[in-house]
């Protein structure tokens, strides 16, 4: 026994196992929510809530799961008490809490979209772009989504076999359809007086106000009933650069005054579509003011819907103004709304099934060789492979989805096959009276041939279908590589020594 554990190959296996467990860092008893992504200028930020605090209760109601959150009865504009692991806070409830909650993680393993739900958007540039141009576009999209407050996202480019570039954005969490508008718009914002552009989104904007004092729904007459329900106005202040203000001054100086307003209006265009037209009051004539108020609106069947829609429109507009326009136009190629029908528990039950299957394999192997000296090492090797694959996945923050689980099954499956080859070569070697080295060389020759075939066959999957099967390809390649270089040599050592 001592001989096995002290051998180089076993030490390597044990080292990787420990590293993997550290990377996964399982916390099986964690429950409740932690705070992440506190919104800038929100009431929560002013109260001093910071990322990473564990939420304990809201208004004295203990919050342990999403049901507790849904049962809360909070009204717009109400002051609520939030108790976290660090402190008690009082914040103003204003459409949302001003921070996002994430379920306390039970491990570092990131679950894929089909387990937690979310949206996958495939974008295609309308013209052929170089690698660099694609990266510029990716950067801007990521900035835009971050400004909007989406944090659980992966964004990457991908090429299909014909060389067409795609941009793939995956956002975890439900109800993220509203980001669709955000990623598909080129987002060219222009404020014009007559035909002259005064300022544009992005570079001419110094800051966009997103706090309650200078953005939101006007307190008076903000919402009013219409034929179809309700409409709510919204407004927010933007500060433009002095150069843009100078331009505004020189243009308005030339205008004439009628009825207290200038004879031309400030027209706001988004992607060449007029979104609103503002009267300019006479005291702004020739003004070099750097502050503007931009208005918008939103409709809904009920007043609450109208408020939500109006605030969403406002947030979208603010985001586009801050991030500026995309350097290149993109169109939405495909949108997959992925519901979490498999459920998060799917993952743990799948891993459990895989481990049970490994026990089954050990049983079958025991029947074949009539010896625990083969089945126990096979079990140890199989389970180690699963742990090391999961460890690697949590280390590189790889999203484990259904395809990845299939990849784990494939990797462990070929692992078991290889172990049987090793065992048989060893057994045969005993009959034929060859040396260990010869037997192992023969077994590993078979294994390496199979290994390279596997890798070559997996590579096309990496690129196929804009990389949707990437998860499967990657986990299989990683799993088989771990098997060939780490676990199988250790297995051979165990068999060699025990025999």
């Amino acid at each position, binding site marked *: 026994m001592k001989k096995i554990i002290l051998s180089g190959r076993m030490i390597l296996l044990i080292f990787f196992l420990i590293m993997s467990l550290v990377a996964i860092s399982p916390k099986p008893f964690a429950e409740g929510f932690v705070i992440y992504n506190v919104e800038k200028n929100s009431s929560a930020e002013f109260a001093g809530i910071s990322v990473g605090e564990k939420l304990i209760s809201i208004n004295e109601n203990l919050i342990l799961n999403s049901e507790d959150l849904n049962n809360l009865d909070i009204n717009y504009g109400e002051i609520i008490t939030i108790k976290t692991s660090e402190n008690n806070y009082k914040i103003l409830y204003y459409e949302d809490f001003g921070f996002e909650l994430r379920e306390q993680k039970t491990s570092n393993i990131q679950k894929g979209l089909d387990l937690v739900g979310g949206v996958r958007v495939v974008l295609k540039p309308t013209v052929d772009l170089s690698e660099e141009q694609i990266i510029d576009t990716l950067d801007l999209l990521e900035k835009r989504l971050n400004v909007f407050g989406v944090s659980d996202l992966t964004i990457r480019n991908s090429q299909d076999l014909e060389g067409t570039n795609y941009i793939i954005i995956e956002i975890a969490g439900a109800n993220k359809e509203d980001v669709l508008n955000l990623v598909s718009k080129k987002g060219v914002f222009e404020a014009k007086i007559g035909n002259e552009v005064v300022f544009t989104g992005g570079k001419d904007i110094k800051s966009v106000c997103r706090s309650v004092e200078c953005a939101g729904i006007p307190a008076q007459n903000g919402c009013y009933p219409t034929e179809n329900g309700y409409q709510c106005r919204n407004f927010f202040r933007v500060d433009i650069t002095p150069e843009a203000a100078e331009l505004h001054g020189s243009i308005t100086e030339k205008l004439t005054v009628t009825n207290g307003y200038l004879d031309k209006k400030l027209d706001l265009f988004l992607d060449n579509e007029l979104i609103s037209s503002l009267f300019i009051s006479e005291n702004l004539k020739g003004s070099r003011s750097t502050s503007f108020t931009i208005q918008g609106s939103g409709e809904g069947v009920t007043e609450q819907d109208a408020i939500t829609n109006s605030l969403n429109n406002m947030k979208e507009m603010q985001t586009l103004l801050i991030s500026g326009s995309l350097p290149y136009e993109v169109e939405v190629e495909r949108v997959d709304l992925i519901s979490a029908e*498999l459920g998060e528990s*799917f993952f743990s*039950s*799948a891993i*459990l*099934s*895989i481990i*049970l*299957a*490994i*026990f*089954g*394999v050990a*049983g*079958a*192997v025991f029947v*074949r060789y009539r010896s625990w000296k083969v089945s126990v090492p096979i079990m140890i090797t199989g389970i180690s492979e699963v742990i090391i694959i999961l460890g690697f996945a949590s280390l590189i923050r790889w999203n484990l989805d*259904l395809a990845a689980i*299939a990849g784990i*099954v494939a990797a462990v*499956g070929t692992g*078991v*096959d290889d172990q*049987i*080859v090793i065992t*048989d070569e060893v057994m*045969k070697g005993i009959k034929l009276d060859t040396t260990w080295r010869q037997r192992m060389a023969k077994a590993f020759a078979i294994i390496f041939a199979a290994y390279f075939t596997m890798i070559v066959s997996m590579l096309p999957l990496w690129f196929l279908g804009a990389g949707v099967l990437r998860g499967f390809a990657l986990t299989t390649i990683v799993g088989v590589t771990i098997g060939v270089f780490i676990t199988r040599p250790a297995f051979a050592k165990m068999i060699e020594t025990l025999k």
Partner: protein
Amino acid sequence: MIEYFSAFETGMTMTITSIVALTILYLTSSAEILKVISVTLIVGLLFDMVNTWIQNAGILRYSLK
């Protein structure tokens, strides 16, 4: 002939252990999708056994002669 038989043995052990593993996966997994995957693979493996016996073994035997 010994070589011949041991290759058969190795191959059969691989296939049978795979079938056992997949049957367990089929019986224990709660998710429909895993059941479908495992059933497909079990059927595939069963046909693979028959196929290897009829086809590949025949070809190998022919080429060895």
